[in-house]
């Protein structure tokens, strides 16, 4: 009796559905809560912390953006991350291409050296980087932070790219060589176009990780005008301790761009973030 079987099946699935529903509320609930708070004044929030935003105070977003330094934080983050991601992708791709394509003396040593960067804790670098940037006058500069981000993300970039580049059939390279391509043309016109999916994955991963990075930024930057977004949010919340409504608006400015990107590129972002863990 199929009808009965499917009824039994359905009853057995009730705990599963309840659990799935509960976890979804746990994941999404806090984010929705911040969203409602970001549109309400602190007085409204303290009267009823879980009320709906009516009327919605959209002007709070303009206040947070213009009256505090939020726009500065946002552009600082944008400049640092775009520069660092561009640089690390280019030099990482060159190195990965070289390691994947050419057999040369010392290639194993170079690969080992670069990939050992995958397991270095930031704490092992940060104090010495602080000294080094002071020595070369790049402490408390965005340039210094860009260089540090590039250096600390070379390992993961090469790791992702080399694995993919090594799978490109050798025949393509032999053919390109016979057609008279130079070494650089082979890289630019064979490896880069064919390796585009891996490049995209590496860019996504590095972008998200750097956009959220906190430790290097907090040690290497001090001026308010130099702060990146995570430092800015921390500062903004700190200076609006009692004004929870405004702090929530500040938090939402950080959340919204990521949610919007995620809505359009969810699969790419999932693939990027898990690139190091999924085989």
């Amino acid at each position, binding site marked *: 009796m199929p009808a009965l079987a499917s009824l039994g099946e359905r009853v057995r699935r009730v705990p599963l559905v309840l659990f799935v529903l509960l976890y979804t509320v746990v994941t999404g609930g806090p984010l929705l809560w911040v969203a409602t708070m970001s549109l309400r004044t602190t007085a409204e929030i303290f009267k009823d912390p879980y009320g709906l935003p009516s009327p919605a105070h959209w002007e709070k977003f303009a206040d947070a953006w213009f009256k505090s330094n939020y726009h500065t934080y946002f552009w600082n983050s944008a400049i640092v991350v775009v520069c660092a991601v561009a640089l690390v992708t280019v030099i*990482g791709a060159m190195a990965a291409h070289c390691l994947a394509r050419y057999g040369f003396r010392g290639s194993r040593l170079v690969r080992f050296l670069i990939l050992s960067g995958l397991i270095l804790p930031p704490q092992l670098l940060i104090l010495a980087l602080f000294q080094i940037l002071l020595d070369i006058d790049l402490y408390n500069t965005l340039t210094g932070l860009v260089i540090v981000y590039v250096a600390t993300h070379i390992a993961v970039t090469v790791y992702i790219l080399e694995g993919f580049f090594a799978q490109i059939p050798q025949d393509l390279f*032999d053919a390109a060589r016979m057609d008279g391509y130079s070494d650089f043309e082979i890289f630019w016109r064979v490896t880069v176009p064919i390796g585009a999916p891996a490049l995209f994955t590496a860019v996504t991963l590095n972008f998200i990780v750097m956009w959220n990075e906190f430790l290097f930024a907090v040690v290497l930057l001090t001026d308010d005008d130099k702060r990146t977004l995570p430092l800015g949010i*921390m500062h903004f919340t700190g200076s609006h301790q009692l004004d929870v409504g405004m702090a929530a608006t500040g938090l939402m400015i950080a959340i919204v761009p990521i949610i919007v990107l995620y809505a359009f590129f969810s699969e790419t972002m999932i693939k990027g973030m898990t690139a190091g863990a999924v085989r």
Partner: protein
Amino acid sequence: MSLGDRLAGFAARAAAPPAIDARRATLGVVVAFLAPALLVYAGFTVYPVLRTFYNAFHTIKPHNVVEFAGLGNFTTLLFADPVFWKAVSNTALFTVVATIVDVAGGLLLALCLFVRAPLAPVLRVVWFTPVLMSYVVVGILWVWIFDYDWGLANATLRWLGLGAYEQSWLGQPSTALWSVLVAHEWKWLGFNMIVFLAALHALPSEVLGAAELDNCGWLAKLVHIIAPMLRPTIVNLLVLSFVGKMMVFDLIWVMTGGGPLWSTETVSTYVYKRAFEWNTFDLGYPSAIAVLWFVIILAFVMLMTRLLRQRDKLEF
């Protein structure tokens, strides 16, 4: 380099005359491709690591005053620093619990979606959202959730009629570390779920089908069939999670700053405090902590991979 690549390389070398062997390159070409990455890496990763090791055996005062300290930093650390040991025990507890929750919870969530819960493709995307948030956002959000007066945690308890269990979650030593752990898992469970789900979908469906025919219960199926086949993924995530938790900094820093009463102090937050907040003005001592901790992490990772991978060999 995989065996396949090597064979392809040999084949290319055998088939083509040397002049057009695409695997060969002059030293100049190799240097040109590697130099940018290696220079930046050497200057801002290799050199800082070496300098940290050097610092660990010295006292580094401001204005480049350097005094040789021998093993002094390490003996102080090991035998005369109760805060360090408090930080070690907090970090160890956090690491063990969070690693287990990461792997077990991630697997549980992945299985829920794998057995075709309703809306599974949508939930997979929704559950992953916190992974993309910065620790600063997650930390501030959870500080509010744990707020005594109007936070979600106490409000939920009151709503369930469990108002007697209200806590000042982050304000008292007995619950602070556990509260940070909850926030940490909220951020990371989705990551482990995605990795497990990918591994589950890569399992050969015939094996699962055969277990179905044998009328194997789902728990037996999980323990005897799915878990062993997921072993490489489990080992991978255990190591990844372990390393991440041993270095936990951001979330602690945002939520509690190590307090109250050292109850959430971790090795990483202690390194930061000793370097930049205490009036000791010495970068040598915190460097010694970082070096010692790195050696311990490395030893555990090697131990874990060896132990867990060896059993692989015995089984297959």
